[in-house]
């Protein structure tokens, strides 16, 4: 289903490329020297513009949704999203700073990514009192660090020149994969794929962690290891996403709930389901972003505008509480 959605996505966009041409373009990559049935521009559009952003959408949707589900399980709180640990705001600030300093391309990626990871380290430091880390402290530290970086972003915006850098920062922060190139996709893949895999491998441990710290300890789970592995993996995903594509909210918070209404609470099923749903969702949203108007609407906007009615419907339809204890 994901593959079908991806294939379909390749054929649509502002520049008309027929299905026939798309097949010809993809084919010519597999079989070098096969004669081309397509224009040069079509090839550029498909290979250099559409494919990277389709891959980016899938990776981002998958990564954010899976890390959201893992964190909600870990923190046993339905309001947790990948931004909770401060990475999103940290990486957002890094990116803002980079734009402000006139750095772009790989420099921007590196700075954003670095700040994202640094902010988790700060969160860990803040939350650890006397060698122990309570979940509440962790969450509050995340909130604190996020607020701090959000304020720092605002200051950076105040300092930015209002015609060039401010709009660039604003737009970048709203989330867009319009200009993603293969370099971005590579960074995304490196950030998301191993992290998502690690999170998936820890699926059963997440089940156990969701019973609470004391119970998990009694069952013999290496709590600290599991917790920090998941936090770090999520941090990598978020940092990668923000660095390449800005802040894309909502997916990581909501997709896990959607997945749970379908497959229940068990993270062995929730993680792949939410990843898939997140990927397809973001792909479709990006298709709309690409085709609806001449202007690119930032992903952050459409993802909410479309998600809201859909999600409200799903929630109301399946009014069972989908994996959370109802109270």
């Amino acid at each position, binding site marked *: 289903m994901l593959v079908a959605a991806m294939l379909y996505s390749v054929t649509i*966009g*502002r*520049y*008309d490329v027929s299905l026939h041409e798309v097949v010809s373009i993809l084919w010519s990559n597999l079989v070098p020297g096969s004669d081309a049935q397509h224009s*040069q*521009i079509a090839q*550029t*559009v498909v290979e*250099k*513009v*559409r494919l990277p*952003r389709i891959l980016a959408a899938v990776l981002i949707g998958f990564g954010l949704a899976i890390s959201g589900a893992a964190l909600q399980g870990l923190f046993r709180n339905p309001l947790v999203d990948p931004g909770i640990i401060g990475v999103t705001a940290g990486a957002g600030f890094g990116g803002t700073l980079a*734009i402000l300093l*006139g750095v*772009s*391309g790989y420099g*921007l990626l590196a700075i954003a990514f670095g700040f994202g990871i640094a902010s988790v380290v700060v969160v860990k430091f803040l939350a650890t009192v006397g060698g122990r880390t309570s979940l509440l402290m962790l969450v509050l530290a995340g909130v604190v660090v996020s607020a701090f970086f959000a304020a720092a972003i605002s200051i950076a915006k*105040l300092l930015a*020149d*209002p*015609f*060039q850098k401010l*709009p*660039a920062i604003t*737009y*970048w922060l709203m989330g*867009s994969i*319009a*200009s993603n190139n293969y370099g971005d996709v590579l960074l995304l893949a490196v950030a998301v794929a191993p992290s998502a895999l690690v999170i998936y491998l820890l699926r059963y441990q997440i089940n156990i962690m969701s019973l609470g710290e004391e119970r998990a300890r009694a069952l013999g789970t290496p709590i600290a290891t599991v917790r920090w592995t998941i936090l770090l993996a999520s941090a990598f995903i978020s940092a990668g996403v923000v660095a390449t594509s800005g802040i894309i909210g909502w997916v990581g918070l909501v997709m896990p709930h959607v997945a749970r209404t379908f497959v229940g609470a068990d993270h062995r099923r929730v993680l792949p389901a939410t990843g898939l749903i997140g990927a397809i969702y973001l792909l479709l949203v990006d298709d709309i972003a*690409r085709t609806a108007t*001449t*202007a*690119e609407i*930032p992903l952050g906007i459409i993802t909410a505008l479309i998600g809201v009615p859909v999600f409200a419907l799903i929630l109301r339809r399946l009014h069972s509480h989908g994996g959370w204890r109802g109270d």
Partner: protein
Amino acid sequence: QVEFKDHRGKEIVLDAPPQKVVTIVRSGPILYRAVDGSADHIAAVNQSFFKRDYVAGLYGELLPELGTLTPTAAIEGFVPNIEAILEIAPDAVIQWASEGAEPLERVGLNVIIWDCCTAEQRRDYVTLTGHLTGKEAHAKAILDLQDASAATMRETFAAMPDADKVSALYIDQFGDQIRIIANGSLDLSLSGVTNPAADDTGQWWQTIDLEQLFAWNPDMILIPPYAHDLTPASFYGNALLADLDAVKNRRVYKIPAFAGSPDAPEIFLSSPWLAAVAHGADTVPQLRGEIHDAYAAIYGIDLGAAQMDSVLYMDQNAASDGYSAIFR
């Protein structure tokens, strides 16, 4: 005695042209400098004024007095820093309509409201400043200059059939995003040009993706002067864009420095310039002279040849089709 109505229709009455004016409108200082002939009476401005090109580069050289204005008038944006303004005790404050006269009038200050952003309102800025400074004649001279230029251009291009018009896309960011100006303030019909991105939303900027650029495939690409990071060369050097007509035909141009702000009184020079790059120098002979005279008439500046080259970005545009020839 100064008496006039501002944009909300409020009667402004002052005993004399103000000695101390605070402007919270970002383009206020440049207009005031143009109409008043000096910056001596500008007591404070808002900080974001300093983020415009008027205090750096070429303009910093031409109008150095603007670089030393007091920046305490407002909080970022246009929110007046009321206590700081009270400390200055200005005779008048210029403020945007969207922000309103609050809380300035509450504490007894004279507030002149400017509204934004129709062409008519932009003309009014000059007139209003003329009333305020008492330099009504100079204000009218500036507007006459604009009107005369526009009339000439209209005469040349009014009858041009759409098919002969050249499509030009303004791109002011090309990096992590591609941002274009969809609905700018310049009347492109005066230059025989169309903007493929224009629509009826009134949205100034749009961010587009590469596909859309290919889909439009404009005849020319124009880079606004404030887009410091972008030069025609950056388009010519980008392999992704090699198939675009504007790139193939070397028709990417940096717009001259006089188009730095849509509010600036010399912005009208953009029309003849654009006509020249779109349809050749023949359509607008004597452009260099016209530019020189405009700066002299508006600001009292005598542009030297090197300064003129800077205004026209001769160096950056050198690689573009015919630019050197047109503006020699």
